[in-house]
């Protein structure tokens, strides 16, 4: 179970990197960055998981509630999601302008910063 659970993290990160490296479309590339971001979210949440645990919300609990999962990791994952959303939004705005100004969305066709 551990192998599958943690393997997902490595897989998501690497496939996101692969997507960025081979991308031919800026929008696709931004989404791949987002996929790599989700690897970190999954890692944090998995580190905080407790088998048979319930959410760290102590209201309306059953009679024998058992342990709660790690609330700290959930707070960190929340922060990570916000960061990811901010970066994705900025990159998409840049992509919109690139399409208008450079006429292409192919990252390999952008040669504006060559010497």
């Amino acid at each position: 179970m551990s192998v599958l659970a943690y393997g997902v993290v490595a897989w998501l990160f690497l496939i996101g990197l692969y997507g960025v490296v081979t991308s031919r479309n800026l929008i696709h590339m931004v989404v791949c960055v987002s996929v790599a971001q989700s690897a970190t979210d999954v890692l944090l949440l998995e580190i905080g998981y407790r088998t048979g645990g319930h959410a760290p919300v102590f209201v309306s609990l059953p009679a024998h509630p058992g342990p709660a999962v790690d609330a700290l990791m959930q707070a960190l994952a929340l922060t990570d999601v916000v960061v990811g959303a901010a970066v994705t939004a900025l990159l998409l705005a840049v992509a919109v302008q690139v399409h208008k100004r450079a006429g292409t969305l192919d990252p390999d066709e952008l040669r504006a910063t060559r010497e």
Partner: protein
Amino acid sequence: MTAVNLVVSTSAVIPASVAVPLGGAALMAGFSRFLPRLARDLIAIAVALATTALTLILTAASAGHPLIYWFSGWRPARGMVIGIDYAVGPLGAGMASLAGVLASAALVYCLRYFDSARGRHHALVLIFLAASVDFCLTGDLFNLFVAFELVAVTAFALTAYNAGHPAPLQGAINFAVTNSLGGMSVLMGVGFLYARTGSLNLAQIGQTLAGRHADALVVVAFALLTGGFLVKAAVVPFHFWLPDAYGSAPIPVCVLFAGVMSELGLFAVIRVWVTVFSGLDGGTGPRMRAVLLGLGILTAVIGAVMALAQVHLKRMLAFLTMSHLGIYLIGAGLLTPLGLAGASLLVIGDGLAKSALFLGVGVVQHQRASVSETRLHGAGRGLAVTGVTMALGALLLADLPPYVSSAGHGLLVDAAERAGLPWMELVVAFSVVASSGAVLRAAGRIWLGWGDGESPGPDTGTADDPGEESESEPGPASAEGAGGADSGQAERDRAGRRRRAPLVMVLPPLALLAIGLGLGLTSGIEEHATAAAAAFSDRAAYATAVLGTAPVPPAGGIAVPPSSVVSAGGVLTDLGQVLAALCVAAVALDRRSAGLRRALAAGTGWLRRLHSGLVGDQVTWLTAGLALLAALGAAALH
């Protein structure tokens, strides 16, 4: 001012140093449409200056022992850290003060640089400043990550400010994608360390790991954390985004980047290494030192060689920044307080000088509408003050005494000798001479009209991006590209020669150089720096200060070496470097050396082609770099 008063008053100063710029930025973002342009500029400058004053107070107040501040009142309980702390030391607070000074200078410069009616940079610059201060003062690993991301987000947005041209947009993409991936790498490292040690506090993680042997998880955490921060610091092979971003960002933004942002990445690497990993078996051993020094040497040399090869002034300065960062990494990578002290003085001095150079290039861009060294041949007439600034800045970067950089250089060379690596001085000298020589060559060509006017290779015209994107005037400064710009170019040339360069653009660089000179002339600056570095490098004392209850007296164990720097030998070496830089510039401009230049260009062509500006390549190098760092870390720590 007695010590007691200082302790009491600094309890409000510490949170104010981030609350003030953040509050100012929030008001700017929310209500800037109700304020006239001048009011916005002045308020932003006032906020930046206030923040600088607060961080300077902290630098002075924390000189004896670190100031620990627990937010929300959550002090450690049951042997565990619950809340987030700031651990303020003179090194961190000094770095934050540098950020404040440069942000203030950049905002003053923006008074004329951004001519548009709705300048929108104020909130972003103030948030950048607040995040930098947080980055330098924090004692919590996740807070470090959040500050890292905040600096990054504001930087991405500022890079793409001139959104009407493809170059800044491409620079922003390269910057944003590589640095985001770096941030993700940092976060994964944080997760690993939390899973192992159960804490997010730097001191507590370090205490838990101390004395233990590093297993695979700790090595991987080290590689991910260090690699992520090295992306920000633009160390080889994570540096490919740097020339693209610096080359196309607006000039005041380049000041912030060159003077503060790259150095923050390095600061984080050393901070995390000292507080978390230095207690491990082999954490301070010669193999770890070899890893850091190797990366530093590579960065310094490649940066210097690439700087020489550029005709685009901003890209040249970008590679110069990278090269100097390699030198700081060498200083810090010696893993002694003396080396770290040398690196910190260099950071301050070079940061001020690099910013002055960028601001000078900005004046040229504003008045002559180009940043291409070859197209600007002889165009410097009428901009004499800026010419002097550029030349002076380049010479000071070559460690001309009595500037503070030469003091730092002396400490670094001293540290290298004590570590048994006297040849390091040659590497540093080569990098400094080559990069300063490139700037002097450009200054000679632009202001004195020496050298050829044609460029050696095809000039793609990216060096003619106009300075600012003006919203009010629809004139020739629009997205017509290189083709239709000829008549517009002539018009701008004539207009530029008629107008004098504005004072708020010409004076700030001189002010920055003056600050550096003042610091260099301060007696005892080397002792202060060494003491600060010694305190910074002492993991055990730091842990006791954060986790214990009583403030710790200065660590007596580490001897502060006597001031060996102001010796005739040190001054001669520095003067020799300056002279060598002048010779490099003279040789480069001489028409008879054309054959030599062609041979050098051919020899370094492969290196220049590697810097393709394509984000796919850059991410590939990043992946390779992370894996390499893990292998090196395993060799050093296992």
